[in-house]
Every structure is written in structure tokens, then in C-alpha cells.
């Protein structure tokens, strides 16, 4: 350990770079050479990279542990290189953004989850995806995902996190649409990607706001300058006033125009939460996650249950110090978490697809995490991330194992995921059954399991914990008195429902008789056939082997995860305080990270003594849910459920269709975007193409067809035009042109008139202005000079004769104006004013060099 600390000092912890880089190398090698490497080499590369990364993460964790005794929150940093310089609006300074990685208790634990569970799922996938032609592609994406996730977790600033954030989004998209040959898989990938964009917008805005107010984007800088976020921001009206507000009458207009302000912290926290809600599938952006089950099952386990979807919770914990500045935003987070937990649970009741049920369960559990984080119980929320990663990954992999077995019989993706075709699998798949049973116990909260400790801590805190209103915050949001009760009620209802639908899933899959010998009647065949998937008639007996246990590569990860699901709770066993046992290592480990945030979190009066009561209530919830499901599906063989469905077919339909939220979005948001696109297409068709392109082309074409008449193609017509032109030039040469250039100098009174020269020209002048030529004959004198007194004018006449004896006449009027009495013209030579073009010179005088106005012939 000592040697390690010497090799990797805390301020230059290079090991972080290796942790991040290894999966990237794996992805690069598999991506470029994977096709030629063969399955075994691809497996070795993919698994090896993540495993070594995991080992490094463990080493990092222990180094971190050994530093943690030193008071301040321990943190290991690897400073990479300067990424960019950002200029600051607030004080005109600038801040450097570094590509640097750091690890503290929070990210260290998260990195262990990602690399550890990541490795297990890699191992699982090496068997699950064995026969897939895209084997190497799958491992490339998985490794790339691990890389992105590690960047997200270990990034030392928001922009670095954002790179990872987008990276995992990309990998999620690629893996959801892994079997892109089927339309619905590609559509699901697209849906996930686009829904996440909305969240990313929020994250980007939050980043901009934080940079504006705090002047830093790295964690330490943000936390140090978070006090700046307490300033007021006017959010309404957007400009000086609301346009046209007074139409509604004076009082309404005044009401509309009243400025509304919030604190910058509230804005930042809400925008950050929008990002978290997108990534972690919270209301209203949760719709992508259930569809994401179109991807291979290991992907669902890794990305859409254990790691990526918890990134939102991680980000919220990471920026906890900012969130707690705004009790209002925190209440919104907690409320949305609670509502998501309940809503997703209701949908899970009616689903038959085993992965869909697990997906809605994931959304619901993520809701719990936000519920915990929202009331300030960051440790509890994050602890649920940890335990959920164990039991939900285990359930998904278990479901994958079941699907694997079913698929070997049924050869149809949809049918092999349908719970109505399963049942009684306990006999055939003992390992899968037992690991699934442990995860089931954990998720519904059987005492002693990991889910029991994490969920019940969240529920307790939801009731007892709240965020204090800071006197310096202008919002003035007070945590409502009924807040705790409401949040607890949501969480409690969610807990009952979780126990119910999970038990339904568990019973339906593993107990009773195996129903997969025939295809269930109600099961609908997929819309389109493909490949080796045959179409089967209902009630037809299927050939094929009985369901079988999966190979060791698949059940070993299950077993490891099940151990975590069973005993992970003792990392933070708050409930044991009831027996006066203090066993909360995770809490102590994370304490320094949430130290600043915890200062704003309060506990209601008497909240410390509620533990026993709430544990009792939690057991009631488990008993109600699980017992209810046992009664309905085992004792009554599902009769009450059928009766309920027959009694309320509309309601069942509605829940089965997921409350038709997708349809609602289809009608509103997507409809709006569609009509915008239609308008754009219309404008393109009629305005851009119609007016701009067609009209101008029509004009050119019309001019062309007019001018084309001149192009006869007959040489003689062209020659005739040439002759006419020659004639015109000849006429110009034959006629004389009496033009002259007049140079005037009003100050001295000297004027000159110079005739323009021409071939064979001779000139005759009338210089004295008496109207008669000065001489009888034409001569070579081509200019005259004369002097004029002030306020005198004279007309000079020029006659030009050319070689053919033709004569042209023109007269020029010269005038010398009076000097300006105001004295402006006296000063003019000292202060020459640049002549404005087009403006008449003062006093009607002509500027020097200006040709005199001709006065006819």
C-alpha cells in the first residue's frame, strides 16, 4: 500500500487514466480488428480490459480508503491537459478547463459498481451472445460504454462528465438498436436518443448558468463558489414587459407584468434535474426506458438497470451542494421521484413481457432514488443505486437466462419473453431460480436483504427529512408541512405495488406448470416474420428440448450478483440501529462528500424515534403486496385478476397501454414538431422552390426565349446587324462634338475652357460673350483663359468644325459668386470641409473642377 501511494501520489493519480483508458483500448481493438480476431480473442480482449480496469478500481478504492483518515474528504486527482480557456462574464477574467479525472468516496464506489458489475455482465454476454453474428460489435459497444461511463463518473468537471454523459447515451443508442434489422429496435434506439437530448439540453443550460454565476465548472470550484448562486434571477417577463398584456385589462396586464424572481440555485438545480430526469428516466421523460428493452438482455441489465440510468442520481449526488441551496427544486425532485415510483409501478401490473415488467420496475426504483436524494438523504439515494445495481442486474440477467432457455424452445423473441409462456421453470433452472429468488426478496424488501435496508431508509427519510429554507435565499420556499406525509404515502404505495407485481412476475415465471409446451392462445404473433423464427399456430405442441439451465458463464455472474443483493445491505444497515448495532460503513465513507450539502438538511421533530414504526410499516407493505399477489395468483390461480380485467376492461386496457403516455406525447410534442416540419416542408415547396427557384427560373427562361428570337442562326442577319452598328459608329465619327472641360477657380477668378480634341477638328471661340464669334475662320486654338470679377458672369461659346465641314456649337456659362458674408469661405481654406457627395455646395457655387452646366447649343 505504501509503495502504491508513492507510485501514485494523490495529486497525480495516474491510475485513473488507466482505469478509463483500458476499456477504450478494448473497444478500439475489437472495433477495428474484431471481425478477423475470432470470438475467443474478442472475448479475451473485451473481458480482459474491463477486468483489469476493475482491479485498478479496487486498488484505487483501497488507496482512497487509506487516505480517508486525513480529515478533509479524500480525493485523488489526475490532471490530464488543459482543454480550453473560458472567459467569464462576471468579472472579465478567465478560467481554464482541464481534462482531469478525480475520484472520491462517491465516484470510487460508483466506479466499483460499473467495472465490477460491468465485468460480470461481459462474462455473461460472452455466452448469451455466443451465436450472434455481431459478436465483436457487441463487445466493442460494451467496452465503449464502460469507457464512457467511467469518464462520466471520474470526470473532475461538468464538461468532462458531459462527454461521458453523451458517450453513454450514444452506446445506449447503439446497443438498444443492436438488432437494427427490425424496425422497432431501431425506433426504440432513436426514441431513447432523442428523449435524452431534451435532458441534455437542461444539462447544457445548467452548465452555462453555473459557469456564469460560479466562474468554475470543476467540482471543487463549483462548491467553493456556490454562494453566488443565491442571487436573484428575474425569470418573468422575459423582456421589459409582456407584449400586448394590456389587452387583457389593466389588472390582468399588471399581474402579467409583475416581475417574478427565483434564485439562480433554483434555476440551476431544475435544469440539472431535467438532465437527470432524461438520463434516469423520470417523469416526464421516462418513456424511452421501457422501449429500450429492445436491446439484448445483458444491455438491459448493464445500461438500463445497473449503471447508465443511475447516472442522473450520481450527478445529483455530485452536485448535492448546489441542489440543497434550493428547497423548492429539491421538493420538485422528491415529488417527481415519488410520482414516478408510483406511476411506473402501476404500469408494471398489467405487462406480460418479463423485460417490460423489469423495465417499469427500474423506472419505479429510480424514482425511489430521486425521492431519497430529493429530501436530502443523498447517502440513502446513492445506497439504493448500489443495492439496485445488484438486485436489478441479477433479475435482468436471470430474465435473460430464462429468455435464453425459452428461446431455445420457441425461437421467437417476443414469445420467449412472454410470461404467459413460462411457469414452473424452478424445476428446470435451479441456479436461475435461486438467484432470482434472492433478488426478488431484495427488491420487495424482505428484512435482511439489501433492498430492505436501502428502500426503507429512503422511505423513513422521505417522511422525516427536509431541506431548510435559507434566510438569504430570495425564493422563500418553505418545505410544506404535509410534504413528508405526501412523499411517504407515494413511497409506501409504491412499495406495496412493487411487492405485488414482482411477486406476480416471480410466481408467473418459476412456479406452477410450464406453459411453454404450447403457444398461449392470446399471444399475438409478431407483425413480420424473419429468418429462422417460425410461425406457430395456437395450441400447437412445440418440438424442442425442455428448458435447461444456462452454462456457467451465465449463472456465475448471477450467483455473484445474488450474493451482493443478499448481503449488500449491510454496507449501510441503518435499520440495525433498532437493535443498537451501528453498521454503516458506506455512510461514514460518503459523509465527507455530502458534508456541505448535509448542513442544509433538517430532520423533523421526533424524526429520530420513528425508525421502529417505519420498519413495521415497511413490513406491512411487503406483506400486503406479496401476500396479495400470492393470494391472487397462487391460491385463486389468477381468478381475481381476470375478474378485475373483465369488470374494468377500459381501465385494464389503459394500464396495459401504459396510460397512453406515448400516445399523448405523440399527439402533443411530436405532433407539434411534425406540424412544424410540415410547415417547413410547405415553405420549402412553395416559397423556396415555388417563388425563389421557379419564379426566377421562369424570368430567366422568358428573357431567354425573347432574346432567342434574335439568334436566327443565319450568318447574314448577323452581318446586317454588324453593318448597322458600323454605320452608327461611322455617323458618330462624322458628326462633330462640341465638348469642353471647364476649370473654375472662384477665389482668384481665373477660368479656363478646354475643348476636347477630335480627329480633324478646328475651333472658333466667342470668348468675350458678345454673341458673335471672335474670328471669321476656324483655327487650332483649343482653349480659352479668362478672368472674371466678383459677381460677374459670362457666356463662352465654342464652335467645332470637323474634316467634313460640319459645325457644332455649344455655350458654357461661367459665373463668379460673391464671397460668403458669414466668413465661412474665409475660414474655408484653413478648415477644408470634405465635400459631401450629392450635397449642393453653399451659395450655389460650383466646386473647383466641376464642369459648368451646358446651356444648349
Amino acid at each position, binding site marked *: 500500500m505504501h509503495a502504491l501511494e508513492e507510485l501514485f501520489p494523490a495529486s497525480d493519480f495516474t491510475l485513473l487514466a488507466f482505469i478509463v483508458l483500458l476499456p477504450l483500448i478494448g473497444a478500439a481493438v475489437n472495433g477495428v480488428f474484431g471481425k478477423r480476431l475470432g470470438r475467443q480473442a474478442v472475448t479475451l480482449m473485451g473481458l480482459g480490459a474491463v477486468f483489469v480496469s476493475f482491479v485498478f478500481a479496487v486498488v484505487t478504492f483501497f488507496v482512497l480508503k487509506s487516505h480517508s483518515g486525513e480529515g478533509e474528504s479524500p480525493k485523488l486527482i489526475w490532471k490530464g491537459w488543459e482543454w480550453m480557456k473560458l472567459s467569464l462574464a462576471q468579472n472579465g477574467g478567465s478560467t481554464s478547463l482541464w481534462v482531469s479525472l478525480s475520484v472520491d468516496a462517491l465516484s470510487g464506489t460508483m466506479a466499483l459498481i460499473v467495472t465490477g458489475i460491468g465485468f460480470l455482465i461481459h462474462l455473461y454476454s460472452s455466452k448469451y451472445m455466443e451465436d450472434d453474428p455481431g459478436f465483436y460489435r457487441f463487445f466493442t459497444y460494451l467496452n465503449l460504454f464502460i469507457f464512457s461511463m467511467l469518464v462520466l463518473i471520474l470526470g473532475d468537471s461538468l464538461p468532462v462528465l458531459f462527454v461521458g454523459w453523451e458517450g453513454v447515451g450514444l452506446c445506449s443508442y447503439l446497443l438498444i438498436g443492436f438488432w437494427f434489422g427490425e424496425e422497432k429496435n431501431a425506433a426504440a434506439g432513436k426514441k431513447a436518443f432523442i428523449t435524452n437530448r431534451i435532458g441534455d439540453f437542461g444539462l447544457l443550460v445548467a452548465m452555462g448558468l453555473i459557469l456564469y454565476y460560479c466562474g468554475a465548472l470543476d467540482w471543487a470550484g463549483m462548491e467553493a463558489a456556490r454562494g453566488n448562486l443565491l442571487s436573484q434571477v428575474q425569470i418573468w417577463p422575459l423582456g421589459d414587459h409582456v407584449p400586448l398584456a394590456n389587452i387583457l385589462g389593466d389588472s390582468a396586464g399588471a399581474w402579467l407584468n409583475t416581475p417574478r424572481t427565483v434564485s439562480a440555485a433554483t434555476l440551476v438545480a431544475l435544469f440539472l434535474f431535467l438532465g437527470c430526469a432524461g438520463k434516469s428516466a423520470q417523469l416526464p421523460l421516462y418513456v424511452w426506458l421501457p422501449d429500450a428493452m429492445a436491446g439484448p438482455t445483458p444491455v438491459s441489465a448493464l445500461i438500463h438497470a445497473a449503471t447508465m440510468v443511475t447516472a442522473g442520481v450520481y450527478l445529483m449526488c455530485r452536485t448535492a451542494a448546489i441542489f440543497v441551496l434550493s428547497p423548492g427544486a429539491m421538493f420538485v425532485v422528491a415529488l417527481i421521484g415519488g410520482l414516478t415510483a408510483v406511476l411506473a409501478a402501476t404500469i408494471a401490473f398489467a405487462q406480460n413481457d418479463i423485460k417490460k415488467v423489469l423495465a417499469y420496475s427500474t423506472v419505479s426504483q429510480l424514482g425511489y432514488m430521486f425521492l431519497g436524494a430529493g429530501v436530502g438523504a443523498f447517502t440513502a439515494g446513492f445506497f439504493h443505486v448500489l443495492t439496485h445495481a445488484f438486485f436489478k442486474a441479477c433479475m435482468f440477467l436471470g430474465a435473460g437466462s430464462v429468455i435464453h432457455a425459452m428461446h431455445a424452445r420457441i425461437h421467437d423473441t417476443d414469445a420467449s419473453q412472454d410470461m404467459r409462456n413460462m411457469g414452473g421453470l424452478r424445476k428446470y433452472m435451479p441456479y436461475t431460480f435461486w438467484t432470482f429468488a434472492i433478488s426478488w426478496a431484495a427488491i420487495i424488501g424482505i428484512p435482511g436483504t439489501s433492498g430492505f435496508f436501502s428502500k426503507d431508509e429512503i422511505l423513513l427519510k422521505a417522511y422525516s427529512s427536509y431541506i431548510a429554507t435559507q434566510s438569504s435565499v430570495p425564493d422563500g420556499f418553505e418545505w410544506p408541512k404535509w410534504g413528508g406525509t405526501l412523499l411517504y404515502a407515494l413511497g409506501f404505495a409504491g412499495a406495496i405495488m412493487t411487492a405485488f407485481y414482482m411477486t406476480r412476475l416471480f410466481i408467473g415465471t418459476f412456479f406452477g406448470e410450464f406453459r411453454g409446451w404450447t403457444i398461449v392462445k392470446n399471444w399475438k404473433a409478431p407483425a413480420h416474420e424473419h429468418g429462422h423464427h417460425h410461425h406457430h399456430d395456437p395450441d400447437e405442441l412445440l418440438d424442442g428440448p425442455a428448458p435447461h439451465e444456462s452454462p456457467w458463464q451465465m449463472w456465475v455472474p448471477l450467483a455473484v450478483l445474488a450474493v451482493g443483493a443478499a448481503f449488500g445491505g449491510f454496507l449501510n444497515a441503518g435499520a440495525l440501529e433498532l437493535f443498537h448495532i451501528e453498521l454503516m460503513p458506506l455512510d461514514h465513507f460518503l459523509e465527507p462528500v455530502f458534508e456541505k450539502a448535509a448542513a442544509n438538511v433538517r430532520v423533523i421533530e421526533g424524526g429520530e424515534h420513528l425508525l421502529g414504526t417505519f420498519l413495521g410499516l415497511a413490513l406491512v407493505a411487503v406483506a400486503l403486496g406479496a401476500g396479495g399477489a400470492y393470494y391472487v395468483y397462487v391460491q385463486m390461480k389468477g381468478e381475481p385478476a381476470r375478474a378485475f380485467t373483465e369488470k374494468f376492461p377500459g381501465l385494464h386496457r389503459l394500464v396495459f397501454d401504459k396510460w397512453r403516455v406515448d400516445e399523448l406525447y405523440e399527439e402533443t410534442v411530436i405532433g407539434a414538431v411534425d406540424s412544424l416540419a410540415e410547415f417547413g416542408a410547405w415553405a420549402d415547396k412553395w416559397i423556396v422552390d415555388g417563388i425563389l427557384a421557379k419564379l426566377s427560373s421562369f424570368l430567366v427562361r422568358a428573357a431567354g426565349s425573347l432574346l432567342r428570337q434574335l439568334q436566327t*442562326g*443565319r*450568318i447574314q442577319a448577323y452581318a*446586317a446587324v454588324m453593318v448597322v452598328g458600323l454605320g452608327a459608329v461611322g455617323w458618330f465619327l462624322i458628326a462633330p462634338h462640341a465638348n469642353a472641360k471647364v476649370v473654375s477657380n472662384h477665389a482668384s477668378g481665373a477660368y479656363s475652357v478646354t475643348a476636347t480634341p477630335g480627329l480633324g477638328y478646328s475651333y472658333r471661340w466667342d470668348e468675350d460673350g458678345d454673341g458673335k464669334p471672335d474670328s471669321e475662320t476656324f483655327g487650332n486654338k483649343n482653349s480659352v483663359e479668362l478672368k472674371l470679377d466678383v459677381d460677374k458672369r459670362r457666356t463662352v461659346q465654342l464652335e467645332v468644325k470637323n474634316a467634313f465641314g460640319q459645325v457644332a456649337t455649344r455655350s458654357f456659362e461661367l459665373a463668379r459668386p460673391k464671397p460668403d458674408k458669414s466668413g465661412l469661405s474665409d475660414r474655408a481654406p484653413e478648415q477644408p470641409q470634405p465635400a459631401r457627395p450629392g450635397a449642393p455646395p453653399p451659395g450655389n457655387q460650383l466646386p473647383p473642377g466641376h464642369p459648368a452646366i451646358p446651356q444648349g447649343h
Partner: protein
Amino acid sequence: MNILGNVVEHYVLLSALIFTIGSIGFLVRRNVLVQLMSIELMLNAVNLALVAFNRRHVGDMNGQVFSFFIIAVAAAEAAVGLAIVLSFYRLKQSVFSDDADQLRL
């Protein structure tokens, strides 16, 4: 001076006359051969004017040299022109310039 005296005007007038005949012939006749001959007329009218004016400039032979060049170029032009007429006739079985409108759409 010389026996021609101040009678350059006559030559210039004759030259103008021939040039006019040539240009009118070029414009009004449709037979390409006749048009070629009209062009020759115009060229020769120019030659005549050049030589006549050159008489006014004693010791300067530029005008006459120029007319030799024109004769040489005219000979080449006639050769090329006749070759074109021949090709054109092979193409269209015609020697009328109105039929030579292939450049038009």
C-alpha cells in the same frame, strides 16, 4: 509629285463603291459562293484604298505592304472558305447560307 496628282479622291470613291457592292452582295445573296466572292470584293476595295492613300506618303511603304498581307490572308481565307463550302455541300446538298442554321436550337 506624280502623274496621279491630287486624284486620290477618285480611287477612294472607287474603293468605297466596290466595298459597298461587296457588302450589299454579301448581305443579299444566299449563295455561299457568291458571298465568298463578295468578301473578296470588299477585301480588294480595302487594298485599293490602302494603296491609293499610300501614294500620299512618299517614302513610306506601309500601305502597300499591308495590302500584300491582305492578299495573302485573302488567298488562305478563300481556300478555307471553299473547303467549308464543299463540306457544307456534302452535308446538306446545298450551297445556300440559309440552310446553315445548325447552331440554332
